[in-house]
């Protein structure tokens, strides 16, 4: 055939669908941008918290007409943010917010300064950032060490830095020792005394009990003495810091946590400091109404709760889905059940919290307490705890698992089931040996989604066991080691608590970002782990490519 016009139209009608391609692409782009923007904000802000900023010394001389009304003087600290303020007259002011610490001197940890008021900015190398147990950071110059024996070591003297380090280390050891005595030994002692008193009340006192009580009292006296001694030692040494405006702050040695010179540190030094702060954040208990210290108990609570939840939700959801899909007669009833299950996912989560409170805590917990702990003074299971919280979340996430499992089961080709039956397998054998393994990757996807949902849920938890501060972890070294009735901390709730319930929201802001970053990372890590497992399985049970 002679070549006439081209065989395929290159423009025109065949491209009619193109705008819809752009539309879908645009939808995806917007979604990606929003997600990345949110994640980016959280990551940048979250990491910024740990990056040690340079300390500056600012000479403030109020200029004519500046709004802040700051008194003349010297301010040392680091810049937290810059902003532009418009005053009533319509004049704009460039302002900076400075963290200056030293709460006992200034009352507030933060101060706003008008740029116009700042006469001079310096970055002296010897400025210290001192972390302490209570009262927030201290910023200033090293003054002197006043040691126990009346010895005084001036800053700059030989061996001063080493002695300071040593002091910090010693106090850390002493605090550890103090904690051990208070929590373990005195705690055990008190518990035994309580038991004996109860015994005596019930059975009438006898000589044995009295003798043991006396012994315990003696032990307590001894421990109390030791405790007092350590406390005294913690107060014995002092580190004197000179603030920028020339005043002195005397810090007890026992209060010192860490001393750092941000202006002297090079890049590596600051990086090291960043990792140290990050590690402290991950591994230590919160202090100062959660605005300082770490979030270790909250990490622990979140992870344990999520795992316990998945242990409950997986078998429950899978079994329910197997019945729905494989055994139930597919009629109106099953359809109604399926719709209800799907809608369960749309019930506001706080409702699950209310249900958990009423059913698990008051009803089940009440029964448990009446049966097993009839003479406990305080409710044991009849109050919020990690077990009830996990169960409540399991209930909340069970639709996710059911739906995913049902879909996974439905995706197993009919031929495979028939082949199993044709080999003489009973229906249950076919499900157990062939259908379930083949749908395992899909089921795991459901569990992953359920975990992600559960780990990020906050509202219902507030009713069933999450608290802002829980000194005792649900799993620890005290018999019986696992305490499912204990209240716990949770990162999601921690964020809420820090951001909106904290007395010092300005100080809590960095923690909010860091905690958010951490919660997201934990969810990502748990998901990645589950995805790795799933892909292993998928490789093993890859569906036949036909």
């Amino acid at each position, binding site marked *: 055939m002679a070549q006439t016009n081209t065989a395929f139209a290159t423009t025109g009608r065949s491209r009619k669908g193109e705008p819809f391609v752009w539309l879908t692409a645009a939808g995806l782009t917007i979604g990606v941008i929003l997600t990345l923007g949110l994640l980016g904000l959280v990551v940048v802000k979250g990491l910024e918290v740990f990056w040690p900023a340079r300390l500056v010394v600012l000479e403030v001389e109020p200029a004519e007409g500046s709004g802040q009304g700051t008194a003349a003087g010297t301010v040392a600290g680091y810049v937290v943010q810059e902003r532009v303020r418009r005053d009533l007259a319509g004049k704009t002011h460039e302002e900076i917010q400075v963290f200056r610490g030293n709460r006992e001197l200034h009352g507030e940890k933060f101060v706003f300064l008008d740029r116009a008021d700042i006469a001079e900015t310096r970055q002296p190398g010897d400025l210290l950032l001192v972390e302490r147990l209570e009262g927030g950071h201290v910023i200033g110059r090293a003054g002197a060490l006043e040691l126990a024996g009346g010895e005084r070591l001036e800053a700059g003297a030989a061996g001063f830095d080493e002695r300071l380090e040593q002091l910090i280390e010693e106090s850390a050891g002493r605090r550890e020792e103090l904690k051990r005595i208070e929590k373990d030994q005195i705690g055990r002692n008190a518990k035994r005394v309580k038991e004996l008193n109860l015994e005596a009340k019930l059975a009438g006192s006898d000589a044995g009990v009295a003798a043991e009580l006396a012994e315990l009292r003696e032990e307590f006296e001894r421990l109390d003495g030791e405790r007092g001694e350590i406390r005294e030692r913690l107060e014995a040494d002092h580190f004197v810091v000179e603030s920028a405006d020339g005043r002195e702050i005397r810090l007890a040695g026992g209060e010192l946590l860490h001393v750092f010179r941000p202006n002297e540190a090079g890049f590596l030094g600051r990086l090291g400091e960043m990792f140290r702060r990050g590690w402290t954040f991950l591994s230590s208990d919160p202090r100062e109404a959660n605005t300082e210290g770490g979030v270790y108990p909250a990490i622990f609570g979140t992870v344990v709760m999520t795992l316990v939840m998945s242990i409950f939700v997986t078998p429950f959801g899978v079994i329910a889905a197997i019945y729905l899909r494989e055994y139930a007669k597919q009629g109106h009833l099953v359809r109604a059940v399926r719709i209800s299950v799907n809608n369960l996912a749309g019930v506001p989560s706080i409702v699950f919290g209310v249900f958990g409170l009423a059913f698990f805590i008051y009803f089940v917990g009440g029964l448990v307490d009446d049966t097993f702990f009839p003479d406990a003074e305080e409710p044991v299971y009849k109050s919020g705890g990690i077990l009830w919280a996990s169960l409540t979340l399991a209930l909340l996430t069970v639709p996710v698992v059911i739906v995913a499992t049902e879909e996974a089961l439905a995706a197993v080709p009919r031929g495979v089931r028939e082949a*199993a*039956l*044709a*080999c*003489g*397998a009973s229906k249950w054998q076919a499900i157990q*040996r062939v259908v379930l393994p*083949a749908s395992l990757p899909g089921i795991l996807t459901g569990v992953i989604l359920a975990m992600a949902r559960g780990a990020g849920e906050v509202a219902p938890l507030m009713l069933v066991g999450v608290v802002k501060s829980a000194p005792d972890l649900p799993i620890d070294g005290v018999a019986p080691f696992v305490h499912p009735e204990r209240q716990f901390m949770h990162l999601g709730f921690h964020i809420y608590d820090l951001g909106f319930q904290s007395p010092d929201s300005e100080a809590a802001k960095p923690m909010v970002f860091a905690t958010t970053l951490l919660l997201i990372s934990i969810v990502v890590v748990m998901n990645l782990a589950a995805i790795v497992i799933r892909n292993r399985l998928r490789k093993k049970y890859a569906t*036949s490519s*036909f």
Partner: protein
Amino acid sequence: MTREDFIAVDRFSFFYGEKQALHDIDMRIPERRVTALIGPSGCGKSTLLRNMNRMNDLIDGVRHRGDIRLNGQSLYDPKVEVISLRKRVGMVFQKYNPFAKTVYENVVFSLRVAGRNRKRELDEVVERSLRSAALWEEVKDRLHDSAFGLSGGQQQRLCIARAIANQPEILLMDEPCAALDPTATLKIESLIRELKEQFTIVIVTHNMEQATRCSDRTAFLYMGRLIEYGDTKQVFENPREDETEAYISGKFS
């Protein structure tokens, strides 16, 4: 000695809900022979075949009339356990469907579900079945790899090995070569000719040559009725009915 009426289909009718798929089928299938079922798409070949191991019971709303007897015993006798019936009747499907398991576990599946787990016995069964399915040499080094790693033809032969592992008396094959290339098809056909020494085979096929190459008897079904049934040679060379002739000469499909 072979029984002429090893499988006896007696005035068998079958309904999917209101739709009647089989009309009063009457046929006798001899022992240790290959019987081919041919006919246009939708004529009821699979339905008939799947009733021989009561696979159609799984579908909601089906009912039947008449009877199918296996070696004299009715399949629909209330005393018959479907599971033990299926142990006597192996089945190979059109679309190869190995399980998401190793080659080894695929073959021994029917023994495992019967509770036979002795390693020695299983090893023997695996070798014997795979040899019978002409697959042993190709997979003997990868018995413990996933069955999905095999080629399509190998997977289908694996399914045959799986179906014969527990020594059934009857082997039902529903278009076993539909998804295979000509070489694999030839392999499976020669396999069928060997297997009839041991098993009674009923095979559904759309391929006329295949029916002539490997079957002893041929049944032609049309619109749910058995039109013609006889020796393969006779049916193809000398059909008694016009519809049969029209079908095998390709006048309609």
